[in-house]
């Protein structure tokens, strides 16, 4: 009997562990956010939230309105958290060579070096910074992933110098000199491919950001039992799992 119980306990624990790791949003220690602004005549827009829990970062980066294709393939937008400098996006005066394009190098005194690569998969270190395969692909995309924060990025977030930069311009929007120039980072690529398009400083949130909206509607009562039942999202789930009869006869106010 005892043996059986102990044996049975294993899958139960395993299930509990799965339930825990699958929970959508553990309360973060600190959340950061930014609405990205346009650089170099970019027409794109973007937002990012970064929730830090322990040494894990959960990033949701949403980008849209960017150039869609590059050499007949989805345009790869390399994107990073830069840090360790002034924590700002470069002003037009950052264009030192006068080609009307602020290159990544010209922007560095403002936003610093790459501290994290916001890759779509795999490596998030600066080493993946120019890997086009793990850049954001095409005009609009979302990167939603959790990874371990390195010390440089942690420090930059704390110091307020962490700046999100999404790279990759439409070459047609550049000056003639800009169109002719090669990338300051990868000479095999045109300057447009690696120059900054969107930029925003990561700021600590004014609140601990709630997950999603609010359950401020009481599910319509259809039965006669008005007994005080516990309400909440959980009950709604139970009611659904209980099948059609339960749903038809739902008697309590499950907040939904």
């Amino acid at each position, binding site marked *: 009997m005892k043996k059986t119980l102990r044996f049975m306990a294993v899958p139960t624990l395993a299930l509990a562990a799965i339930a825990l790791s699958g*929970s959508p949003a553990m309360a973060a220690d600190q959340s950061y956010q930014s609405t990205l602004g346009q650089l170099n005549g970019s027409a794109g827009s973007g937002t990012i939230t970064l929730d830090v829990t322990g040494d894990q970062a959960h990033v949701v980066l949403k980008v849209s309105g960017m150039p869609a294709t590059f050499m007949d393939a989805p345009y790869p937008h390399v994107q990073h958290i830069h840090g360790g400098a002034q924590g700002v996006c470069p002003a037009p005066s950052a264009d030192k060579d006068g080609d009307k394009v602020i290159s990544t190098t010209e922007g560095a005194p403002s936003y610093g070096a790459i501290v994290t690569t916001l890759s779509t998969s795999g490596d998030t270190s600066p080493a993946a910074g120019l890997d086009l395969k793990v850049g954001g692909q095409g005009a609009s995309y979302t990167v939603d992933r959790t990874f371990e924060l390195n010390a440089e990025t942690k420090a930059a977030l704390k110091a307020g110098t962490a700046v999100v930069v999404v790279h990759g311009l439409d070459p047609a929007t550049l000056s003639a000199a800009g169109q002719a120039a090669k990338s300051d980072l990868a000479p095999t690529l045109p300057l447009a491919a690696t120059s900054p398009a969107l930029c925003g400083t990561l700021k600590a949130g*004014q609140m601990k950001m709630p997950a999603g909206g609010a359950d401020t509607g009481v*599910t319509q009562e259809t039965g006669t039992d008005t007994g005080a039942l516990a309400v909440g999202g959980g009950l709604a789930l139970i009611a659904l799992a209980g099948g059609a009869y339960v749903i038809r006869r739902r008697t309590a106010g499950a907040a939904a």
Partner: protein
Amino acid sequence: MGASAPVTLAIPSIGVRTDLLHLGLRENGSLEVPGTGSDAPASWYNGSPAPGERGPSVMLGHVNALGGARGVFADLRNLAPGSEINVSRTDGSTAVFTVDRGAKYSKNQFPTLEVYGNTSGAELRLITCDGYDPATGFFDDNYVIYAKLKA
């Protein structure tokens, strides 16, 4: 204004006058909500800035109540831009806000950064439900009022 917790919320143009509960987040990170009775008050999310303090102060109220009764925020959708919202605070002061706009969002695609994101001034968010689906009995949407502290 400095940080001082809210006590009551009054919206004269739609006849709202309610005490404010102070509620936090659930285990899963979503907002705790007030009770479901017809006399349930509205609530202030105690993780958000105090009303009058810099940032978006977040308040919640049910659109309806148990037994098909009206909730404290039943008329939020009728709240017009320019209307005044008064929040009394524990320090005895009143923060007066002006309604900027209202917006309806699907709960599946709720724009958390737009609603809860940083603001340069003191702002207020009033949240209730919308999008009632008679087939399921659920409310699929949230309705959000954006208001700014009166200068």
